[in-house]
């Protein structure tokens, strides 16, 4: 067929429209509802979000419960009840009731104090993260993390300057910590009496003075860390257009055509070759950690993560070089278990969940046509679903002084598919190794 005539026909009908048959949107929607089995995927993001919200809610409720019913005191009540001799039951019950009442009063007094510390700390973290100079080198980021960690220390340490350490408190500590031994039983009454007299400050001092390795809890710790590495993910994808007129954009959606009787065309248009290189995300974070007892602790915080990817797309002689930068802000919730520990050194295991939201993202594309630069396009990147991940790590912590310790946590994380089509390392390598390095500061010790 005459090529010119063919082009004329093409031109004549390019973008031609005709009145669509009587097909209303409602009809489309009803068919869409029928096919909804296939459309579940995008809603996974919402489900995961709901699950994450539940976890956060339960976690938050747990923390609130712990604050209101200080673990330290609760353990004591239980202990006393367990040790009651039958003949003393009636009297002891009334004593216990009184004590529970006292505990409640005290918890309420203590609550604003803890909240204040946590609140200040988090505010401070917010001010420091995410780091606005996101393109800086890792060295700078480390500096920023240290800097912010120092700031945290300054803020959080101020309310704690006047912690008294009294002999009475020491005595209380020893009574309390040896509560499981029967020898301690006669001293129980004494404990009950002294307990209501304690002030907030003395309560804090108690925890501080408690020797390591003994049962206890209630200590708050501020954590600042950086996470990064040298691992990258590379991917090369060769996509051939199924129909030439479709200009090789997007993916082939029609499985019947791709797999069925039709043979996919190999030489209709030059194939699209995409090379993607995702660099290891860089993360800085801060968290407030609460010690449940000497083994278990939980933390919650904020984490800022920066992703960088280089994407090169070749279609024949057209080369698009894209640099993608994504900024995520996440809320991690972790639980830690101390495996072994000495006065200066601790080894612990951590596990946790994190929900992350894309704050902002940018894609800058340099277009090269036949080897000649053909302009630069910049577009912003959006992602609606929350990215949920789970992680586990082993941590080692070294304590410099009473307040300051340094830690390193090699870990592994898994990022769930959130249904978005954003090309990131989370999608490319859902399982990711990472190393967190940071500092911890005791707040109320």
């Amino acid at each position: 067929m005459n090529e010119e005539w063919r082009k004329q026909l093409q031109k004549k009908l390019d973008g031609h429209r005709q009145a669509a048959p009587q097909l209303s949107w409602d009809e489309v929607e009803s068919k869409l509802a029928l096919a909804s089995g296939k459309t579940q995927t995008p809603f996974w993001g919402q489900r995961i979000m709901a699950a994450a919200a539940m976890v956060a809610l339960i976690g938050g409720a747990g923390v609130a419960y712990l604050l209101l019913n200080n673990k330290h005191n609760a353990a004591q009540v239980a202990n006393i009840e367990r040790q009651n001799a039958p003949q003393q039951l009636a009297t002891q019950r009334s004593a216990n009731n009184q004590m529970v009442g006292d505990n409640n009063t005290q918890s309420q007094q203590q609550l604003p104090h803890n909240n204040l510390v946590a609140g200040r700390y988090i505010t401070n973290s917010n001010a420091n993260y995410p780091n606005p100079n996101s393109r800086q080198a890792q060295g700078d980021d480390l500096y920023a993390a240290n800097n912010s960690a120092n700031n945290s220390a300054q803020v959080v340490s101020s309310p704690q300057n006047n912690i008294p350490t009294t002999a009475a408190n020491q005595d209380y500590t020893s009574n309390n910590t040896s509560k499981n031994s029967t020898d301690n039983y006669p001293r129980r009454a004494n404990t009950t009496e002294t307990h209501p007299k304690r002030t907030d400050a003395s309560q804090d001092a108690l925890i501080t003075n408690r020797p390591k390795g003994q049962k206890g809890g209630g200590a708050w710790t501020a954590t600042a860390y950086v996470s990064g590495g040298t691992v990258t993910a590379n991917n090369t994808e060769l996509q051939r257009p199924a129909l030439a007129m479709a200009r090789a954009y997007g993916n082939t959606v029609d499985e019947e055509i791709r797999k069925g009787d039709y043979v996919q065309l190999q030489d209709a248009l030059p194939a699209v070759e995409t090379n993607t290189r995702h660099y290891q995300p860089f993360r800085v974070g801060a968290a407030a950690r609460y010690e449940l007892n000497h083994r278990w602790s939980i933390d919650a915080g904020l984490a800022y993560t920066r992703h960088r990817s280089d994407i090169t797309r070749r279609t024949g002689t057209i080369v698009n070089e894209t640099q993608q930068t994504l900024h995520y802000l996440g809320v991690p919730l972790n639980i830690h278990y101390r495996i072994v520990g000495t006065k200066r050194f601790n080894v612990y295991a951590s596990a946790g969940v994190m929900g992350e939201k894309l704050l902002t993202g940018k894609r800058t594309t340099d277009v090269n046509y036949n080897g000649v630069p053909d302009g630069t396009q910049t577009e912003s990147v959006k992602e609606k679903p929350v990215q949920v991940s789970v992680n586990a790590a082993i941590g080692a912590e070294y304590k410099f002084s009473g307040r300051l310790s340094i830690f390193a946590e090699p870990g592994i994380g898994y990022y769930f598919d959130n249904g978005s089509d954003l090309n990131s390392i989370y999608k490319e390598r859902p399982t990711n190794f990472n190393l967190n390095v940071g500092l911890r500061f005791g707040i109320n010790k």
Partner: protein
Amino acid sequence: MRFFIGDKEKKLVNRLHDGDKTAMQDFYTLYADYIASVGARYIDNDDDLKDLMQDCMVKMITSIGQFDYRGPGSLQAWVTRIMVNVSLSFLKQKRTEAFVALDTDLPDEPDNGYPPLDEIPPDVIHQMVRELPTGYRTVFNLFVFEDKSHQEIAQLLGIKRDSSASQLHRAKNMLAKKIEQYNKNNATR
């Protein structure tokens, strides 16, 4: 010709990616007539066309997540491809006899030439294409509008390469005849 370029199209894609329901309706409003036209080139029965448009819309909406915006016109190109694929699938399944007939050897036909198209409105050409027999029409559309080679058409429709060429020749001759007739009628007026 494209309905909209650059930002507008991109914004619509973003809204679709976000699962915005009104975006789906906007998408349908904007593309329904275009999809109808692409489909009508392949499908001559309006009831079938309606069903296939419905399939096409559902396919597009459910797989919009796989669509990656690649610049102006990419959404339209994607839409075209889906509609063509849906139509071909349908023809392949329901009208296999049309393609079987394609493989029967046809005696050589003299070339009717290439009559000028300038004076013919697009709607008329479109209708003329629709009136071609299904088998001829499919080959003609794939060759002319989807830029397929005979080798590709043969693979797509499961026919011989030579059949594709002879079908195209026949389709072109039929169309040329119609166009000549139209031009003649038009000139006499």
